[in-house]
């Protein structure tokens, strides 16, 4: 049998990557970003307008930690939405399972943190596998509905406070007496920040490894043409269930870190609004891209917190009431930006750079 070497496909010039001055550094940029984020708490530079107080003040660090958590959550949700094409409206359920699971096991059952965390993440993953096994019997919009309904059950269970476990509408503050000393108190916020950074790194690592693996290619195939994957002899149901379970497990791990940072659980994290905002984060950042969802999640949470302060600032208050009132609602601003994003830059933030470079190239005078 003779083997015929196929000629290599010719890549058109305009598709091959541009060789900029820094192209050798590009693979190391994530590492540089990680190092910068890790040593950020040592800086005392005040950034007026961006943060209140210097970077290493506990308030700023807590805000940054929450932003990082939501960056990780958005990256995990992107595994479903951007990379597999599953529109789940119930992702908040697994995050809430992580938050409430840890809180209940530590506060009500008095378990040490590491046991509670381990049990919660295992439980959250199993929950995702079970509910996913039912929900994935449906496809498309019906799948969105079923996941929404399951998440609603979670919200009802938490709000109605069955068995007096969840604290109902008031939420459940975390009992810190049994926690390791390094994670308690305002002065130790920096440790929580590093924990959040570690979570984000873990999620990004897992998502990249999965999407680069053969399984990840099947998932991308499911997003683009599910029937074809079936024709190739692969079972779409199993691959989707794997993605759903993995995303659920990552979300509940995020919940474990979040409850430590915030110091308690409140029922609003079970609402469908949280899932909707995850969707907004991913679409704003750029679904299915490497850094888009992380950027989207960090930016969304930052804006959500800072726009509240911006809305009560003098500059907005001095505007006429028609303008100042809507602008003081972060969700109004974010929702509007989101709608504009769907129309005018569908690839999200990460698609802006190539678009802008096209623009500048066409505007530059030809030599």
């Amino acid at each position, binding site marked *: 049998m003779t083997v015929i070497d196929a000629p290599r496909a010719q890549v058109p010039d305009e598709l091959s990557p541009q060789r900029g001055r820094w192209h050798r550094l590009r693979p190391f940029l994530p590492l540089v970003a990680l190092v910068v984020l890790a040593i950020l708490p040592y800086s005392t530079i005040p950034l007026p307008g961006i943060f209140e107080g210097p970077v290493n003040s506990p308030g700023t660090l807590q805000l940054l930690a929450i932003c990082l958590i939501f960056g990780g959550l958005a990256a995990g949700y992107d595994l479903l939405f951007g990379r597999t094409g599953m529109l789940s409206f119930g992702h908040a359920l697994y995050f809430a399972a992580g938050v409430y699971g840890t809180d209940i096991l530590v506060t009500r059952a008095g378990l040490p943190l590491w046991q509670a965390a381990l049990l919660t993440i295992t439980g959250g993953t199993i929950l995702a596998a079970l509910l996913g096994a039912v929900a994935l019997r449906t496809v498309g919009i*019906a799948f969105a*509905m079923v996941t*929404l309904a399951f998440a609603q059950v979670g919200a*009802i269970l938490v709000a109605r406070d069955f068995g007096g476990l969840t604290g109902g509408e008031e939420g459940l503050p975390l009992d810190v007496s049994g926690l390791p000393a390094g994670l308690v108190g305002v002065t130790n916020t920096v440790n929580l920040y590093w924990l959040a950074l570690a979570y984000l790194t873990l999620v990004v690592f897992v998502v990249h490894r999965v999407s680069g693996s053969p399984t990840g290619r099947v998932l991308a195939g499911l997003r683009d043409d599910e029937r074809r994957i079936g024709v190739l002899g692969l079972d779409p149901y199993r691959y989707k269930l794997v993605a759903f379970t993995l995303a659920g497990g990552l979300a509940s791990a995020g919940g474990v870190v979040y409850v430590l940072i915030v110091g308690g659980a409140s029922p609003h994290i079970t609402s469908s609004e949280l899932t909707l905002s995850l969707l907004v984060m991913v679409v704003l950042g750029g679904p299915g891209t490497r850094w888009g969802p992380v950027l989207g999640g960090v930016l969304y949470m930052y804006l959500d917190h800072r726009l509240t302060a911006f809305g009560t600032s003098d500059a907005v208050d001095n505007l006429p009431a028609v303008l100042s009132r809507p602008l003081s609602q972060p969700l109004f601003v974010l929702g*509007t930006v989101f709608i504009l994003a769907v129309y005018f830059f*569908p690839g999200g933030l990460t698609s802006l750079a190539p678009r802008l470079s096209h623009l500048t190239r066409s505007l530059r005078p030809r030599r």
Partner: protein
Amino acid sequence: MGTVILLALTGLGLAALYFLVASGLSLVFGLADVLNFAHGLFLGVGAYGTWWAAGNLPGAGPDGFGFVFAVAFGVAAGTLVAILVELVLIRPLYSRTIEQVLVTVGLSLAGVALLQATWGADARPFPRPDWTRQVTGILGAQVPNGGLLLIIAAVLVLGAILAFLRWTRYGLVIRAGVENREMVTALGIDVRKAFTLVFAIGGAAAALAGALGGVYFGTVSPGQGGSLLIFAFIVVVIGGMGSVVGSAYAAVVVGLVQQFVNYYGTSGLGDICVVGLLAVVLLLRPQGIAGKVATA
């Protein structure tokens, strides 16, 4: 006996509210394949429109004919918003289902925030005629009049929509479009006009639900639409996308199950039973009670 009748009638009142929201959702989804998260916004606009008109509009008021005028104003406002949403935001995105869902999600977030910015997050007392606060004795049960008003309105709306679908030309186009949109387009009929019409009908029904729901609950708040919307979605899926009659059956089942289980079981258990019902229906009969056929 009195308790059972009271529960049945209040359950039917709840079912009427669900049906008013779900009928529009179901038609919009059946015809245009748009999963409309902004439907709760139409409901909010209807409720706040009525509330505003009763206080500020000359001739409108919380009583008698003035109240009818106020409700009409609220319904008109909801319809107008629905038509604008379809024309400006949804129309450029037809056949791109995911983007449409995303736009309606953004709209529901921004719209509710706008209502909250304008009238505050707290619930406001709703202006309602005095007779809706009273009760009527039916077979030994003291039934609140607000619930009866909802049931009557829902039956009238059901009759009107069915008559419209069966006996008018546009009703025929909508029924045919739900069945097979490509074929209708191929016959030279502009289906997009029917899309706008369906949005208008859905918006009007949701706005009416907002106004009468305000009478029923006695208050109006920006988040009201969102919590109703999830149950309306469940009703649509159980009833079958695109079927108005299916939505009506499903609304009755969901409303009664919720009311009875919440009373005889723990509070909140009824809501969970409804979701269980949804899971069972989806697993056994994914197309819902009536399937994707607009039965008229």
